[in-house]
Protein backbone atom coordinates (compact mmCIF):
# COMPACT_ATOMS: atom_id res chain seq x y z
CA UNK A 1 0.00 0.00 0.00
CA UNK A 2 2.83 2.36 0.95
CA UNK A 3 4.54 1.88 -2.41
CA UNK A 4 1.21 2.40 -4.24
CA UNK A 5 0.67 5.69 -2.43
CA UNK A 6 4.24 6.72 -3.28
CA UNK A 7 3.62 5.91 -6.96
CA UNK A 8 0.31 7.79 -6.92
CA UNK A 9 1.94 10.81 -5.30
CA UNK A 10 4.77 10.86 -7.86
CA UNK A 11 2.20 10.49 -10.68
CA UNK A 12 0.37 13.59 -9.43
CA UNK A 13 3.65 15.48 -9.02
CA UNK A 14 4.92 14.63 -12.51
CA UNK A 15 1.65 15.07 -14.42
CA UNK A 16 -0.93 16.92 -12.32
CA UNK A 17 1.19 19.71 -10.86
CA UNK A 18 2.87 20.87 -14.14
CA UNK A 19 -0.46 20.62 -15.99
CA UNK A 20 -2.52 22.61 -13.50
CA UNK A 21 0.09 24.92 -11.94
CA UNK A 22 2.75 25.12 -14.69
CA UNK A 23 1.70 28.65 -15.72
CA UNK A 24 1.59 30.03 -12.20
CA UNK A 25 5.16 30.88 -11.17
CA UNK A 26 4.17 31.67 -7.59
CA UNK A 27 2.43 28.34 -6.94
CA UNK A 28 4.94 26.18 -8.81
CA UNK A 29 7.69 27.99 -6.89
CA UNK A 30 5.97 27.13 -3.62
CA UNK A 31 5.72 23.46 -4.57
CA UNK A 32 9.41 23.47 -5.60
CA UNK A 33 10.33 24.98 -2.22
CA UNK A 34 8.24 22.31 -0.49
CA UNK A 35 10.17 19.67 -2.47
CA UNK A 36 13.49 21.16 -1.32
CA UNK A 37 12.33 20.60 2.26
CA UNK A 38 11.01 17.17 1.22
CA UNK A 39 14.44 16.22 -0.12
CA UNK A 40 16.15 17.07 3.16
CA UNK A 41 13.30 15.37 5.07
CA UNK A 42 13.82 12.13 3.10
CA UNK A 43 17.58 12.24 3.75
CA UNK A 44 16.96 12.92 7.46
CA UNK A 45 14.37 10.14 7.71
CA UNK A 46 16.72 7.68 5.98
CA UNK A 47 19.28 8.27 8.71
CA UNK A 48 16.66 8.14 11.46
CA UNK A 49 14.70 5.17 10.18
CA UNK A 50 17.62 3.07 8.94
CA UNK A 51 20.15 3.15 11.72
CA UNK A 52 18.19 5.00 14.36
CA UNK A 53 20.26 8.19 14.28
CA UNK A 54 18.41 11.41 15.05
CA UNK A 55 20.33 14.30 13.51
CA UNK A 56 19.94 17.99 14.38
CA UNK A 57 22.72 18.92 11.99
CA UNK A 58 21.48 18.40 8.44
CA UNK A 59 21.80 22.16 7.86
CA UNK A 60 25.57 21.53 7.74
CA UNK A 61 25.24 19.13 4.77
CA UNK A 62 22.77 21.47 3.09
CA UNK A 63 25.16 24.41 3.42
CA UNK A 64 28.30 22.52 2.41
CA UNK A 65 26.52 21.14 -0.70
CA UNK A 66 25.28 24.62 -1.59
CA UNK A 67 28.67 26.32 -1.21
CA UNK A 68 30.58 23.49 -2.97
CA UNK A 69 28.36 23.70 -6.01
CA UNK A 70 28.26 27.50 -6.06
CA UNK A 71 32.05 27.90 -5.79
CA UNK A 72 32.71 25.21 -8.42
CA UNK A 73 30.40 26.81 -10.96
CA UNK A 74 31.47 30.41 -10.24
CA UNK A 75 35.24 30.00 -9.82
CA UNK A 76 36.02 26.90 -11.87
CA UNK A 77 33.33 26.89 -14.55
CA UNK A 78 32.05 23.44 -13.68
CA UNK A 79 28.68 22.74 -15.40
CA UNK A 80 25.77 23.20 -12.99
CA UNK A 81 24.38 19.65 -13.22
CA UNK A 82 27.85 18.19 -12.56
CA UNK A 83 28.27 20.62 -9.65
CA UNK A 84 25.01 19.40 -8.09
CA UNK A 85 26.51 15.90 -7.83
CA UNK A 86 29.85 17.21 -6.58
CA UNK A 87 27.93 19.30 -4.03
CA UNK A 88 26.52 16.02 -2.69
CA UNK A 89 30.01 14.52 -2.63
CA UNK A 90 31.29 17.58 -0.75
CA UNK A 91 28.57 17.16 1.87
CA UNK A 92 29.47 13.47 2.20
CA UNK A 93 33.12 14.39 2.71
CA UNK A 94 32.12 16.93 5.36
CA UNK A 95 30.21 14.19 7.19
CA UNK A 96 33.52 12.34 7.68
CA UNK A 97 34.36 14.93 10.35
CA UNK A 98 31.18 13.87 12.14
CA UNK A 99 32.07 10.16 12.24
CA UNK A 100 33.38 10.29 15.84
CA UNK A 101 29.83 11.27 16.88
CA UNK A 102 28.58 7.87 15.66
CA UNK A 103 29.90 6.39 18.90
CA UNK A 104 27.24 8.43 20.69
CA UNK A 105 23.59 7.51 20.91
CA UNK A 106 20.22 9.23 21.17
CA UNK A 107 20.26 12.87 22.29
CA UNK A 108 24.07 12.88 22.64
CA UNK A 109 24.47 12.08 18.94
CA UNK A 110 21.84 14.67 18.02
CA UNK A 111 23.56 17.41 20.03
CA UNK A 112 27.04 16.53 18.78
CA UNK A 113 25.82 16.81 15.18
CA UNK A 114 24.18 20.14 16.00
CA UNK A 115 27.54 21.40 17.27
CA UNK A 116 29.23 20.29 14.03
CA UNK A 117 26.63 22.24 12.03
CA UNK A 118 27.48 25.40 13.97
CA UNK A 119 31.20 24.81 13.34
CA UNK A 120 30.60 24.60 9.58
CA UNK A 121 28.56 27.82 9.69
CA UNK A 122 31.45 29.61 11.44
CA UNK A 123 33.96 28.19 8.93
CA UNK A 124 31.83 29.41 6.01
CA UNK A 125 31.64 32.88 7.58
CA UNK A 126 35.38 33.07 8.26
CA UNK A 127 36.63 31.63 4.94
CA UNK A 128 36.00 34.93 3.22
CA UNK A 129 38.25 34.22 0.22
CA UNK A 130 36.33 31.12 -0.75
CA UNK A 131 32.77 31.76 0.39
CA UNK A 132 32.52 35.53 0.35
CA UNK A 133 32.20 35.50 4.14
CA UNK A 134 29.15 37.00 5.82
CA UNK A 135 28.43 39.00 2.65
CA UNK A 136 27.76 35.76 0.79
CA UNK A 137 27.87 34.88 -2.87
CA UNK A 138 25.80 36.73 -5.46
CA UNK A 139 24.92 35.81 -9.04
CA UNK A 140 25.29 32.06 -8.62
CA UNK A 141 24.62 30.52 -12.08
CA UNK A 142 21.06 29.41 -12.66
CA UNK A 143 20.08 25.94 -13.74
CA UNK A 144 21.00 25.68 -17.44
CA UNK A 145 19.17 25.02 -20.68
CA UNK A 146 19.60 21.33 -21.40
CA UNK A 147 18.26 19.35 -24.36
CA UNK A 148 16.22 22.38 -25.37
CA UNK A 149 14.54 22.72 -21.96
CA UNK A 150 15.21 25.82 -19.85
CA UNK A 151 15.61 24.50 -16.32
CA UNK A 152 16.30 28.02 -15.07
CA UNK A 153 12.56 28.81 -15.00
CA UNK A 154 10.31 28.06 -12.00
CA UNK A 155 8.78 25.09 -13.80
CA UNK A 156 12.22 23.86 -14.94
CA UNK A 157 13.52 24.09 -11.38
CA UNK A 158 10.47 22.21 -10.17
CA UNK A 159 11.19 19.37 -12.63
CA UNK A 160 14.83 19.18 -11.51
CA UNK A 161 14.09 19.05 -7.76
CA UNK A 162 11.26 16.55 -8.42
CA UNK A 163 13.75 14.30 -10.24
CA UNK A 164 16.26 14.65 -7.38
CA UNK A 165 13.63 13.71 -4.78
CA UNK A 166 12.41 10.80 -6.94
CA UNK A 167 15.97 9.46 -7.28
CA UNK A 168 16.35 9.77 -3.51
CA UNK A 169 13.14 7.82 -2.92
CA UNK A 170 14.23 5.08 -5.35
CA UNK A 171 17.63 4.84 -3.59
CA UNK A 172 15.91 4.72 -0.20
CA UNK A 173 13.51 2.03 -1.45
CA UNK A 174 16.30 -0.25 -2.69
CA UNK A 175 18.43 0.24 0.43
CA UNK A 176 15.43 -0.55 2.62
CA UNK A 177 14.50 -3.78 0.85
CA UNK A 178 18.08 -5.11 0.79
CA UNK A 179 19.56 -7.26 3.58
CA UNK A 180 21.46 -4.12 4.64
CA UNK A 181 18.09 -2.39 4.96
CA UNK A 182 16.76 -5.21 7.15
CA UNK A 183 19.76 -4.94 9.45
CA UNK A 184 19.52 -1.14 9.56
CA UNK A 185 15.79 -1.30 10.31
CA UNK A 186 16.49 -3.72 13.17
CA UNK A 187 19.29 -1.48 14.47
CA UNK A 188 16.72 1.26 15.09
CA UNK A 189 15.41 -0.41 18.26
CA UNK A 190 17.70 -3.37 18.84
CA UNK A 191 21.30 -2.58 17.98
CA UNK A 192 22.79 -5.16 20.35
CA UNK A 193 20.67 -7.91 18.77
CA UNK A 194 22.13 -7.07 15.37
CA UNK A 195 25.72 -6.70 16.56
CA UNK A 196 25.68 -10.08 18.26
CA UNK A 197 24.89 -11.88 14.98
CA UNK A 198 27.72 -10.13 13.19
CA UNK A 199 26.16 -6.96 11.79
CA UNK A 200 28.93 -4.34 11.50
CA UNK A 201 26.64 -1.69 12.96
CA UNK A 202 29.13 1.17 13.03
CA UNK A 203 30.14 0.58 9.40
CA UNK A 204 26.49 0.58 8.29
CA UNK A 205 25.88 3.81 10.23
CA UNK A 206 28.87 5.38 8.49
CA UNK A 207 27.47 4.39 5.08
CA UNK A 208 24.02 5.76 5.97
CA UNK A 209 25.52 9.03 7.19
CA UNK A 210 27.47 9.37 3.91
CA UNK A 211 24.35 8.64 1.82
CA UNK A 212 22.15 10.97 3.86
CA UNK A 213 24.75 13.75 3.69
CA UNK A 214 25.11 13.26 -0.09
CA UNK A 215 21.36 13.57 -0.60
CA UNK A 216 21.10 16.68 1.57
CA UNK A 217 24.14 18.24 -0.10
CA UNK A 218 22.68 17.69 -3.56
CA UNK A 219 19.43 19.38 -2.49
CA UNK A 220 21.40 22.26 -0.96
CA UNK A 221 23.35 22.59 -4.22
CA UNK A 222 20.12 22.68 -6.20
CA UNK A 223 18.78 25.41 -3.92
CA UNK A 224 21.89 27.54 -4.48
CA UNK A 225 21.33 27.51 -8.24
CA UNK A 226 17.58 27.94 -7.81
CA UNK A 227 17.77 31.15 -5.74
CA UNK A 228 21.18 32.33 -7.11
CA UNK A 229 22.34 33.68 -3.74
CA UNK A 230 24.05 32.29 -0.63
CA UNK A 231 25.19 33.59 2.71
CA UNK A 232 26.23 31.49 5.75
CA UNK A 233 23.30 32.44 8.00
CA UNK A 234 20.91 31.32 5.27
CA UNK A 235 22.76 28.25 3.91
CA UNK A 236 23.48 26.81 7.37
CA UNK A 237 20.26 28.05 8.95
CA UNK A 238 18.59 25.82 11.54
CA UNK A 239 15.49 26.04 9.33
CA UNK A 240 17.08 23.43 7.06
CA UNK A 241 17.14 21.08 10.01
CA UNK A 242 13.94 21.95 11.87
CA UNK A 243 11.49 22.19 8.96
CA UNK A 244 12.50 18.82 7.43
CA UNK A 245 12.31 17.15 10.88
CA UNK A 246 8.81 18.54 11.45
CA UNK A 247 7.78 17.47 7.94
CA UNK A 248 9.24 13.98 8.27
CA UNK A 249 7.66 13.30 11.66
CA UNK A 250 4.35 14.80 10.58
CA UNK A 251 4.23 12.71 7.39
CA UNK A 252 5.61 9.52 8.97
CA UNK A 253 9.39 9.32 9.08
CA UNK A 254 9.46 5.54 9.18
CA UNK A 255 7.64 5.30 5.85
CA UNK A 256 9.10 5.79 2.38
CA UNK A 257 7.08 8.75 1.14
CA UNK A 258 5.75 10.07 4.46
CA UNK A 259 8.48 12.76 4.65
CA UNK A 260 7.57 14.02 1.15
CA UNK A 261 3.87 14.06 1.95
CA UNK A 262 4.62 15.80 5.26
CA UNK A 263 6.80 18.45 3.60
CA UNK A 264 4.22 19.22 0.91
CA UNK A 265 1.38 19.40 3.41
CA UNK A 266 3.19 21.38 6.10
CA UNK A 267 4.88 23.88 3.79
CA UNK A 268 1.95 24.53 1.47
CA UNK A 269 -0.61 24.86 4.28
CA UNK A 270 1.78 27.14 6.14
CA UNK A 271 2.45 29.39 3.14
CA UNK A 272 -1.03 29.44 1.64
CA UNK A 273 -3.21 29.46 4.76
CA UNK A 274 -1.45 30.16 8.06
CA UNK A 275 0.77 32.92 6.69
CA UNK A 276 -2.32 34.82 5.53
CA UNK A 277 -4.07 34.33 8.86
CA UNK A 278 -1.09 35.21 11.08
CA UNK A 279 1.61 37.03 9.06
CA UNK A 280 3.98 37.12 12.07
CA UNK A 281 4.57 33.86 13.94
CA UNK A 282 2.47 31.61 11.68
CA UNK A 283 4.95 28.76 12.36
CA UNK A 284 3.40 28.48 15.81
CA UNK A 285 0.44 26.69 14.24
CA UNK A 286 2.85 24.13 12.72
CA UNK A 287 4.08 23.33 16.21
CA UNK A 288 0.52 22.79 17.39
CA UNK A 289 -0.21 20.62 14.33
CA UNK A 290 2.90 18.52 14.94
CA UNK A 291 2.01 18.03 18.60
CA UNK A 292 -1.52 17.04 17.60
CA UNK A 293 -0.23 14.54 15.05
CA UNK A 294 2.19 12.98 17.54
CA UNK A 295 -0.64 12.58 20.07
CA UNK A 296 -3.27 11.28 17.63
CA UNK A 297 -1.06 9.26 15.28
CA UNK A 298 2.55 8.94 16.46
CA UNK A 299 3.52 7.16 13.25
CA UNK A 300 2.41 10.16 11.15
CA UNK A 301 0.01 11.14 8.39
CA UNK A 302 0.86 8.51 5.77
CA UNK A 303 0.02 5.53 8.02
CA UNK A 304 -3.36 7.22 8.74
CA UNK A 305 -4.08 7.46 4.99
CA UNK A 306 -2.85 3.89 4.43
CA UNK A 307 -5.15 2.62 7.20
CA UNK A 308 -8.12 4.48 5.69
CA UNK A 309 -7.52 2.85 2.30
CA UNK A 310 -7.00 -0.59 3.85
CA UNK A 311 -10.16 -0.29 5.97
CA UNK A 312 -12.22 0.89 2.98
CA UNK A 313 -10.92 -2.03 0.92
CA UNK A 314 -11.77 -4.46 3.73
CA UNK A 315 -15.28 -2.93 4.07
CA UNK A 316 -15.85 -3.30 0.32
CA UNK A 317 -14.78 -6.95 0.42
CA UNK A 318 -17.04 -7.62 3.41
CA UNK A 319 -19.93 -5.92 1.58
CA UNK A 320 -19.35 -8.06 -1.52
CA UNK A 321 -19.22 -11.20 0.58
CA UNK A 322 -22.53 -10.32 2.28
CA UNK A 323 -24.22 -9.71 -1.11
CA UNK A 324 -22.93 -13.03 -2.40
Amino acid at each position, binding site marked *: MNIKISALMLGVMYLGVPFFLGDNDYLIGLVASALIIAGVAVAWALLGNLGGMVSFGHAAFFGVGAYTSAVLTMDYGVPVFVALVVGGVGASLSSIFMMPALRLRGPYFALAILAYAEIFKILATEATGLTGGAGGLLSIPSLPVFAGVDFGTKLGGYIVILNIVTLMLITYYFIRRS*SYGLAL*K*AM*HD*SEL*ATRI*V*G*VPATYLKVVMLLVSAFMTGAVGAFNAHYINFLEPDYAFSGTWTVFPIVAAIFGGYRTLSGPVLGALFIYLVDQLVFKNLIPQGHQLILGVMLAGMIILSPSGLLPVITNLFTRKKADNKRGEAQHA
Partner: protein
Amino acid sequence: MLKVENLSVNFGGVRALQDVSFEVQTHEVLGLVGPNGAGKTTSFNVLSGTVRPTAGSVTYEGHDILKSSMHQRVTFGIGRTFQIPQPMHELSVRENLIVAQRFGRPDGKVKQERIDEILESVNLLHKAEADAATELALTERKALEVAKALATEPTLLMLDEVLAGLETTSKKLFMQTLKNIREKYSLSMIVIEHDIETIMNMCDRVVVFNFGKVIADGDPEETFRNPEVVRSYTGEVPA
Protein backbone atom coordinates in the same frame (compact mmCIF):
# COMPACT_ATOMS: atom_id res chain seq x y z
CA MET B 1 39.63 -24.72 20.69
CA LEU B 2 38.94 -21.84 23.15
CA LYS B 3 41.57 -20.80 25.66
CA VAL B 4 40.88 -18.15 28.27
CA GLU B 5 43.95 -17.08 30.28
CA ASN B 6 44.18 -14.82 33.33
CA LEU B 7 41.16 -12.78 32.37
CA SER B 8 40.35 -9.82 34.60
CA VAL B 9 37.55 -7.27 34.33
CA ASN B 10 37.11 -4.25 36.58
CA PHE B 11 33.96 -2.11 36.60
CA GLY B 12 35.23 0.95 38.45
CA GLY B 13 36.16 -0.41 41.86
CA VAL B 14 34.33 -3.72 41.34
CA ARG B 15 36.51 -6.64 40.27
CA ALA B 16 34.02 -8.63 38.21
CA LEU B 17 36.62 -11.18 37.01
CA GLN B 18 39.97 -11.94 38.62
CA ASP B 19 42.58 -14.05 36.80
CA VAL B 20 39.99 -16.34 35.25
CA SER B 21 41.32 -19.20 33.11
CA PHE B 22 39.50 -22.08 31.44
CA GLU B 23 39.45 -23.99 28.17
CA VAL B 24 36.83 -25.54 25.92
CA GLN B 25 37.72 -28.53 23.76
CA THR B 26 36.18 -29.36 20.38
CA HIS B 27 32.66 -30.88 20.71
CA GLU B 28 32.76 -30.35 24.48
CA VAL B 29 29.86 -28.88 26.49
CA LEU B 30 31.22 -26.77 29.32
CA GLY B 31 28.95 -25.52 32.09
CA LEU B 32 29.65 -22.21 33.84
CA VAL B 33 28.02 -22.23 37.26
CA GLY B 34 28.08 -20.13 40.38
CA PRO B 35 25.94 -17.78 42.44
CA ASN B 36 24.46 -14.60 40.95
CA GLY B 37 27.11 -11.96 40.32
CA ALA B 38 29.92 -14.52 40.26
CA GLY B 39 31.18 -13.44 36.82
CA LYS B 40 29.62 -15.97 34.44
CA THR B 41 27.79 -13.54 32.16
CA THR B 42 30.70 -11.10 32.32
CA SER B 43 32.86 -13.91 30.89
CA PHE B 44 30.34 -14.34 28.05
CA ASN B 45 30.34 -10.60 27.47
CA VAL B 46 34.14 -10.57 27.16
CA LEU B 47 34.12 -13.55 24.79
CA SER B 48 31.43 -12.05 22.57
CA GLY B 49 32.98 -8.57 22.64
CA THR B 50 30.40 -6.51 24.53
CA VAL B 51 32.84 -5.95 27.43
CA ARG B 52 36.55 -5.12 27.15
CA PRO B 53 38.72 -6.92 29.72
CA THR B 54 41.24 -5.17 31.94
CA ALA B 55 43.83 -7.94 31.48
CA GLY B 56 44.23 -11.45 30.09
CA SER B 57 44.06 -13.20 26.73
CA VAL B 58 41.51 -15.25 24.80
CA THR B 59 42.36 -17.35 21.77
CA TYR B 60 39.81 -19.17 19.65
CA GLU B 61 40.94 -21.52 16.87
CA GLY B 62 44.23 -19.62 16.76
CA HIS B 63 42.64 -16.15 16.64
CA ASP B 64 43.46 -13.62 19.34
CA ILE B 65 39.83 -12.61 19.66
CA LEU B 66 40.35 -9.72 22.07
CA LYS B 67 41.85 -7.83 19.12
CA SER B 68 38.78 -8.59 16.96
CA SER B 69 35.48 -6.75 16.63
CA MET B 70 32.16 -8.36 17.62
CA HIS B 71 31.44 -8.82 13.94
CA GLN B 72 34.73 -10.68 13.34
CA ARG B 73 34.21 -12.95 16.34
CA VAL B 74 30.89 -14.09 14.89
CA THR B 75 32.53 -14.90 11.58
CA PHE B 76 35.24 -16.87 13.47
CA GLY B 77 32.39 -19.14 14.64
CA ILE B 78 31.42 -17.80 18.08
CA GLY B 79 27.66 -17.50 18.59
CA ARG B 80 25.80 -16.51 21.74
CA THR B 81 22.37 -16.04 23.22
CA PHE B 82 21.25 -13.59 25.90
CA GLN B 83 19.50 -14.38 29.15
CA ILE B 84 16.82 -11.84 28.21
CA PRO B 85 16.00 -12.60 24.56
CA GLN B 86 17.10 -9.93 22.11
CA PRO B 87 14.93 -10.30 19.00
CA MET B 88 15.52 -7.85 16.17
CA HIS B 89 12.55 -5.52 16.39
CA GLU B 90 10.28 -4.89 13.40
CA LEU B 91 11.54 -8.01 11.65
CA SER B 92 9.83 -11.38 11.26
CA VAL B 93 11.40 -14.52 12.68
CA ARG B 94 12.64 -15.44 9.20
CA GLU B 95 14.09 -11.96 8.62
CA ASN B 96 15.95 -12.23 11.94
CA LEU B 97 17.68 -15.33 10.58
CA ILE B 98 18.28 -13.73 7.16
CA VAL B 99 20.19 -10.88 8.84
CA ALA B 100 22.12 -13.37 11.01
CA GLN B 101 23.09 -15.44 7.94
CA ARG B 102 23.90 -12.47 5.75
CA PHE B 103 26.23 -10.82 8.23
CA GLY B 104 27.30 -13.67 10.52
CA ARG B 105 28.46 -16.18 7.92
CA PRO B 106 31.93 -15.59 6.49
CA ASP B 107 30.63 -15.89 2.89
CA GLY B 108 27.55 -13.73 3.62
CA LYS B 109 25.24 -16.00 1.63
CA VAL B 110 21.58 -16.35 2.57
CA LYS B 111 20.21 -19.88 2.16
CA GLN B 112 16.46 -20.21 2.69
CA GLU B 113 16.64 -24.04 3.00
CA ARG B 114 19.16 -23.69 5.78
CA ILE B 115 16.92 -21.15 7.55
CA ASP B 116 13.94 -23.53 7.32
CA GLU B 117 16.11 -26.37 8.62
CA ILE B 118 17.23 -24.30 11.63
CA LEU B 119 13.69 -23.14 12.39
CA GLU B 120 12.52 -26.75 12.17
CA SER B 121 15.26 -27.88 14.56
CA VAL B 122 14.13 -25.36 17.22
CA ASN B 123 10.41 -26.00 16.57
CA LEU B 124 9.83 -22.51 15.22
CA LEU B 125 9.07 -23.14 11.55
CA HIS B 126 5.33 -22.56 12.07
CA LYS B 127 6.15 -19.05 13.35
CA ALA B 128 8.58 -18.15 10.56
CA GLU B 129 6.56 -15.15 9.38
CA ALA B 130 5.52 -13.95 12.86
CA ASP B 131 6.78 -10.62 14.20
CA ALA B 132 9.79 -11.55 16.31
CA ALA B 133 9.32 -8.88 18.97
CA THR B 134 5.57 -9.06 19.56
CA GLU B 135 4.12 -12.40 18.46
CA LEU B 136 6.26 -14.98 20.25
CA ALA B 137 5.76 -16.66 23.64
CA LEU B 138 8.74 -16.88 26.02
CA THR B 139 9.78 -20.39 24.90
CA GLU B 140 9.61 -19.26 21.27
CA ARG B 141 11.65 -16.15 21.99
CA LYS B 142 14.29 -18.34 23.62
CA ALA B 143 14.16 -20.66 20.60
CA LEU B 144 14.67 -17.65 18.31
CA GLU B 145 17.76 -16.68 20.31
CA VAL B 146 19.24 -20.11 19.61
CA ALA B 147 18.09 -20.05 15.96
CA LYS B 148 19.71 -16.65 15.32
CA ALA B 149 22.99 -17.88 16.72
CA LEU B 150 22.75 -21.09 14.64
CA ALA B 151 22.11 -19.07 11.48
CA THR B 152 25.62 -17.62 11.80
CA GLU B 153 26.91 -21.22 11.58
CA PRO B 154 28.90 -21.19 14.82
CA THR B 155 31.34 -23.84 15.96
CA LEU B 156 31.06 -22.61 19.57
CA LEU B 157 27.62 -21.76 20.91
CA MET B 158 27.37 -19.86 24.20
CA LEU B 159 23.98 -20.21 25.91
CA ASP B 160 23.24 -17.75 28.72
CA GLU B 161 20.51 -19.19 30.96
CA VAL B 162 18.52 -20.18 27.92
CA LEU B 163 16.25 -22.42 30.02
CA ALA B 164 15.59 -19.86 32.77
CA GLY B 165 11.94 -19.01 33.33
CA LEU B 166 10.60 -22.05 31.47
CA GLU B 167 8.22 -24.45 33.22
CA THR B 168 9.33 -28.06 33.76
CA THR B 169 7.86 -29.64 30.62
CA SER B 170 9.06 -26.87 28.30
CA LYS B 171 12.47 -26.99 29.97
CA LYS B 172 12.81 -30.74 29.31
CA LEU B 173 11.72 -30.37 25.69
CA PHE B 174 14.07 -27.43 25.17
CA MET B 175 16.97 -29.32 26.73
CA GLN B 176 16.36 -32.20 24.31
CA THR B 177 16.27 -29.70 21.45
CA LEU B 178 19.65 -28.32 22.52
CA LYS B 179 21.12 -31.84 22.69
CA ASN B 180 19.80 -32.59 19.21
CA ILE B 181 21.27 -29.33 17.90
CA ARG B 182 24.63 -30.15 19.43
CA GLU B 183 24.69 -33.51 17.65
CA LYS B 184 23.30 -32.24 14.37
CA TYR B 185 25.69 -29.32 13.99
CA SER B 186 28.69 -30.86 15.83
CA LEU B 187 28.88 -27.90 18.17
CA SER B 188 30.98 -27.07 21.18
CA MET B 189 28.94 -25.28 23.81
CA ILE B 190 29.38 -23.14 26.90
CA VAL B 191 26.26 -23.17 29.03
CA ILE B 192 25.46 -20.80 31.89
CA GLU B 193 22.77 -22.40 34.01
CA HIS B 194 21.61 -22.37 37.62
CA ASP B 195 19.65 -25.59 37.44
CA ILE B 196 21.99 -28.38 38.61
CA GLU B 197 19.91 -31.11 36.91
CA THR B 198 20.31 -29.33 33.57
CA ILE B 199 24.05 -29.01 34.09
CA MET B 200 24.40 -32.69 35.00
CA ASN B 201 22.29 -33.64 32.01
CA MET B 202 24.04 -31.53 29.40
CA CYS B 203 27.60 -30.78 30.42
CA ASP B 204 30.81 -32.79 30.02
CA ARG B 205 32.64 -30.50 32.42
CA VAL B 206 31.89 -27.55 34.71
CA VAL B 207 33.77 -24.45 35.80
CA VAL B 208 32.53 -22.92 39.06
CA PHE B 209 32.74 -19.15 39.64
CA ASN B 210 32.51 -17.26 42.91
CA PHE B 211 33.22 -13.55 43.48
CA GLY B 212 34.79 -13.29 40.00
CA LYS B 213 37.20 -16.19 40.51
CA VAL B 214 37.26 -19.77 39.26
CA ILE B 215 37.06 -21.99 42.34
CA ALA B 216 36.68 -25.39 40.65
CA ASP B 217 37.00 -26.98 37.21
CA GLY B 218 36.21 -30.61 36.41
CA ASP B 219 33.71 -33.44 36.06
CA PRO B 220 30.21 -32.20 37.06
CA GLU B 221 29.48 -34.91 39.63
CA GLU B 222 32.81 -34.61 41.39
CA THR B 223 32.81 -30.82 41.26
CA PHE B 224 29.43 -30.51 42.95
CA ARG B 225 30.80 -32.57 45.86
CA ASN B 226 33.73 -30.18 46.25
CA PRO B 227 33.34 -28.52 49.70
CA GLU B 228 34.36 -25.12 48.42
CA VAL B 229 31.72 -25.29 45.69
CA VAL B 230 29.01 -26.27 48.17
CA ARG B 231 30.11 -23.48 50.49
CA SER B 232 29.87 -20.96 47.64
CA TYR B 233 26.20 -21.88 47.20
CA THR B 234 25.09 -22.55 50.78
CA GLY B 235 27.70 -20.96 52.98
CA GLU B 236 28.09 -24.35 54.72
CA VAL B 237 30.53 -27.24 54.44
CA PRO B 238 28.87 -30.67 53.83
CA ALA B 239 29.25 -33.32 56.52
